[in-house]
């Protein structure tokens, strides 16, 4: 005999099985494919970037190389600073707790 105060339990819906693999794969493909609008936007973002030849012809040299292939003056200056930093770090005595350098 059932208790009249007991609320009927909702049955958990059982997902229907796929009829075949193609059906399952089509569902997956639709979920992961990129929308056309997103692809259009991506294409336009890419084409807004300078091309290699265009960049060489029009843009001011940035990065490691000038259009002629020679390295820019800023590159040498940065390298000199970096080498100086390394030399200073290498020559700095190690810090050991409780130990002092004495002569």
């Amino acid at each position, binding site marked *: 005999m059932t208790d009249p105060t007991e609320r009927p339990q909702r049955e958990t*819906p059982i*997902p*229907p*099985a*796929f*009829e*075949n*693999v193609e059906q*399952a*794969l*089509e*569902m*997956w*493909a639709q*979920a*992961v*494919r*990129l929308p056309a609008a*997103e*692809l259009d936007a*991506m*294409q336009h*973002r*890419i*084409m807004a*970037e*300078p*091309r*290699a*030849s265009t*960049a060489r012809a029009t843009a001011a040299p940035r990065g490691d190389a000038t259009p002629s292939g020679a390295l820019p003056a800023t590159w040498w200056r940065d390298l000199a600073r970096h080498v100086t930093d390394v030399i200073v770090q290498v020559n700095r005595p190690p810090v050991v707790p409780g130990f002092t350098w004495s002569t």
Partner: protein
Amino acid sequence: MPTPADGAATAESVFSEIFRTHQPGVYAYLLGRLGDPEAARDLLQDVFLRVWRNLDEVRSLPTHRRHAWIFTVARNLVTDAYRSRATRRATTQALASLVTHTAPPPDEPHTRAESAELLNAVTRAVRSLPEELRVILAMHVVGELTSAQIGEALGQPAGTIRYKLARARQALAAQLAIPPEPGMEVGR
């Protein structure tokens, strides 16, 4: 005599054609390798940014070598991505987050829940495939490439691709408790 403006227009139309032709296959390849649609989309943009920056070189190549050039870039970028810890983390989570950025169909709530559950089941099954089978399956199903085109991109005979596609389908059917179909088509 071509003006600079003509040259720019030509470059854009050439790039559009290359993008339209190769994007589906490259995206599917990246999806198969990485398992994560977000990471695949980001790398897709990186691949075609390199195409755009080297358009003069790419456009001068014959079609099959252009295809190989683009897939080599994609492979190298995947290798770089694997080296990145952040991308590896995203890869392990893989398609688990897929449902969150998949637009649900405008159905009843219980139907949406069922669809999400089914999609999760398929996603888990695809993710459980060995990477090689997953790449081939993604290129065939998502990229809509033929066995011959996949074989060309991956450097394998079309017959081998068809065999691996059949294996991938069988593995999926077993995972999803789908009875095997007699005479199932294994590839185009």
